[in-house]
């Protein structure tokens, strides 16, 4: 056991250094992802998906992140993994305990991507050869998969097929399209549909479910005038995306994509919760808003922290009757993960509390829950991976 812990610590902490040696001529010549994405299985096992330079590995912990199994490689051959600051390899567990890993690669130097998935039906001992999520090879990025309440796997991503089509027809096309597909048994993901054209192209997506067959996706949209504010689409049924509901009018007019994506949670009472970053003319910084239901408008945004603390990377999680919200901010010396909890569907929140800190590089803070409680899941350069239980707070 001690050996296993030592081995895992080694893998987690020195992977970057090792990587420099075996695949690079010169240190820093290829950018690398620094992320860890968690998921709990129904039996309480914690799974982590991590990129290791040119491959994706999965690790398993049965003691809440204190020790991990030896890594299992998902990608049999080296791949040119997407290292974008808002991209992430992820792992999802279906109700039967089977695993779905999703990740993106770069196809070229122009950041054209390809989204892949691999499955394990043997408790993570082995994975199927990674397959593209969609047949079209133009470009996909920021893939995210989730399991709906009926156990079906839904994937959504930003897709550039319509950019290519428009270009071929001599037309302009701003941004990318929000694409989606449902998993279809052994065949993999079924046909791809486009939910919306002209979304912002390089921010992560947020995914939650309003019910079986009813994904709710939050994304940075392009509103008229190249205003890159946030919108939510809730599906009426598995094939029918609803209209875009604007989360707030921040009026961030920018001809670029800020690599800062939003987060969404749908609570048990059907209320919607969104947190996001903006540098708009109307407001700047990190914000939260709630909506009573899938059709009602969002409340006035509430600021989280101050703009001069670089608040960023919010994450929301609904867990039983509770809502958890974390983000990171910087005080000139340390990065802190700040946490708020609400017990009344986001109407009132606890005072922000620091649950973890670091004085070096860090991944985005993420939230994950088992049957008992919610945890902060955070990878930092100095401390390695940490799973921190979020205690009770009045």
């Amino acid at each position, binding site marked *: 056991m001690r050996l296993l812990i030592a081995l895992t610590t080694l893998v987690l902490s020195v992977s970057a250094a090792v990587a420099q040696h075996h695949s690079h001529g010169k240190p820093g*010549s290829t950018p690398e992802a620094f992320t860890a994405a968690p998921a709990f299985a129904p039996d309480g096992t914690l799974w982590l998906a991590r990129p290791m330079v040119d491959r994706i590995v999965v690790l398993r912990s049965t003691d809440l992140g204190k020790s991990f199994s030896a890594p299992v490689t998902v990608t049999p051959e080296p791949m040119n993994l997407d290292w974008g600051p808002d991209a992430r390899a992820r792992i999802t567990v279906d109700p039967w305990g089977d695993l779905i890993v999703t990740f993106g690669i770069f196809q070229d130097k122009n950041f054209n991507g390809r989204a892949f998935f691999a499955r394990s039906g043997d408790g993570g001992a082995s994975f199927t050869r990674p397959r593209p999520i969609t047949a079209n090879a133009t470009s996909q990025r920021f893939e995210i998969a989730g399991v709906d309440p009926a156990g079906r796997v839904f994937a959504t991503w930003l897709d550039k097929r319509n950019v290519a089509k428009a270009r071929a027809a001599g037309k302009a096309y701003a941004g990318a399209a929000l694409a989606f597909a449902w998993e279809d048994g052994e065949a993999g993901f079924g046909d791809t549909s486009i939910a919306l054209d002209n979304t912002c192209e390089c921010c992560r997506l947020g995914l939650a479910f309003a019910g079986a067959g009813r994904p709710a996706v939050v994304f940075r949209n392009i509103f008229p005038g190249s205003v890159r504010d946030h919108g939510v689409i809730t599906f009426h049924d598995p094939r029918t995306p609803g209209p875009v509901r604007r989360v707030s009018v921040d009026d961030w007019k920018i001809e670029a994509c800020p690599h800062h994506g939003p987060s969404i949670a749908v609570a048990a009472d059907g209320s919607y919760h969104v947190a996001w970053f903006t540098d708009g003319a109307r407001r700047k910084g990190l914000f939260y808003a709630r909506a009573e239901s899938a059709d009602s408008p969002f409340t006035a945004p509430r600021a989280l922290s101050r*703009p001069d603390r670089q608040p960023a990377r919010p994450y929301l999680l609904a867990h039983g009757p509770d809502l958890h919200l974390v983000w990171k901010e910087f005080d000139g010396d340390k990065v802190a993960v700040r946490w708020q909890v609400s017990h009344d569907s986001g109407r009132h929140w606890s005072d922000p509390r620091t649950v973890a800190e670091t004085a070096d590089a860090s991944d985005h803070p993420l939230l994950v829950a088992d049957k008992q409680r919610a945890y902060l899941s955070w990878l930092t350069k100095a401390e390695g991976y940490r799973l921190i239980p979020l205690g009770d707070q009045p």
Partner: protein
Amino acid sequence: MRATAFLAVVLSLTSFAATAADPLPFGRGSWAKLSQAHAGRPTVIHLWGLTCAPCLVELPHWGKLAAERPDLALVLVAADPVPQDPKRLADVLTRAGLGKAESWSFTDRFYERLRYEIDPAWAGELPRTVMIDAKGEVTVLPGVADIARVRAWLDTQRSSRP
């Protein structure tokens, strides 16, 4: 002593021919060194990124301005949140006509700290231009810079010279 060595590095870089050398590594404390080395001289610091599409469109405009205005002390800082290949950064600058300009790139993944040292209120949006006059007064141009404004600023610096 350290400042002298640093200046030597900068000078050797700026005297380089049209092809850019690899950017200087920008890490913790680099901003203080950079500002110190340029203190008392009007300087334009342009923050850009290889992963920032509008930055790549904008760079040749800076190349043109640099060729046109010998009074422009231009410093380029590649502020990608994930450190980029120095060779690729140098190639892009050379192609934009900025092979001779002083150039730095973020080499530390603790980008929160690097940004904070430059400006605590900067959340990392690129491009961004910081103009510092001889007295240390700072003018920030967020987003793609209006080159006419930079020209006008340079004119002001020239006329206010003793």
